[in-house]
């Protein structure tokens, strides 16, 4: 503790008994040191009363040295969890971007498969497609989708007859 004696100018006019400051430390110390005498008066036990198992301290060095031998060599801990979370976050961002960008791209190029049959029929009925009966009949509508003529080039004739047999109610359509 630093000793900083603050100078006293003694202008207040007060006085102290002679030797007062010289003896002050000892007097205070006596007061403080009297705790020991006080404790003796109360007759406090000097020991806390705690015990240890037999030979506890004898075996302690071996047990503790064994612990440090089993520990890994001191190394810098790399927090793999943090790295994993960062990598997962980056991957999630990529997946999100990929899905967003490519999905949007895909949405712009809609195919005929996505168009409802009723919408196509309405479009034709409203006269937006200028097709003759011959041109129209060249397109066979199957299950709500327009089947292109070129598809029939690879079609098996037996499969066609089987389909017609199963799906066409009025055979006169085939015969005519």
């Amino acid at each position, binding site marked *: 503790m630093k000793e900083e004696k603050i100078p006293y100018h003694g202008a207040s006019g007060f006085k102290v008994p002679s030797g007062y400051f010289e003896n002050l430390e000892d007097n205070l110390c006596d007061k*403080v040191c009297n705790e020991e005498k006080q404790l003796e008066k109360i007759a406090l*036990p000097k020991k*806390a009363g*705690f*015990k240890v198992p037999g030979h*506890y*301290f004898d075996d*302690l*060095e071996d047990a503790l040295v064994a612990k440090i031998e089993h520990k890994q060599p001191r190394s810098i801990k790399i927090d793999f969890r943090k790295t994993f979370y960062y990598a997962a976050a980056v991957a999630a961002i990529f997946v999100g971007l990929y899905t967003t960008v490519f999905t949007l791209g895909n949405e712009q190029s809609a195919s005929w498969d996505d168009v409802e049959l009723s919408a196509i029929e309405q479009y034709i009925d409203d006269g937006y497609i200028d097709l003759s009966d011959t041109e129209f009949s060249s397109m066979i509508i199957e299950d709500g989708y327009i089947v292109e003529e070129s598809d029939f080039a690879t079609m098996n004739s037996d499969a066609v007859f089987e389909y017609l047999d199963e799906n066409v109610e009025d055979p006169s359509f085939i015969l005519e």
Partner: protein
Amino acid sequence: MEKTENLLVQQLKDSKTSQKAFRELVSLYKERLYWHIRNIVKNHDDAHDVLQNTFMKIFRNIDQFKGDSKLFSWMYRIATNESITFLNKKSKRLQISSNDLQSAIINNLESDVYFEGSEIQLKLQKAIASLPKKQQQVFNMKYFEELKYREIADILETSEGALKASYHIAVKKIEEFLKTN
């Protein structure tokens, strides 16, 4: 002693000699650290756990010891902090306040096989438990461990004057407790 201490620290920091130096360190300080910890946590099994943690921490962090204070003070400081951390974790685990935990620990002393069980010793432990934490530390270190104020000041990083005042008040409170209980 200082020369021996410096040499021991050097050997602990050198991987070739660290294990042998560690054994020597344990041999030199095991009992003093154990009783210091025991006076805080009270129970032998808990004191054993904290003592192990303390020595492990000392061994792992010896490179951080710069020699600003004595090795002994640094180790005692670690032991004190480990003891307090242990008790705080225990109270959180049991979901009770630290005061309730301390009451429970003191109440268990009566049936503890590693407590001598004299009535006055039990009463003294109850009196100490009634003190604020800092005063408990100061009282234990001065009264039971017989450390000098200078040493306690180094460990607790408090002035000697504050420690003397703290001890004085602690003694008064213990006296009062024993009179009224």
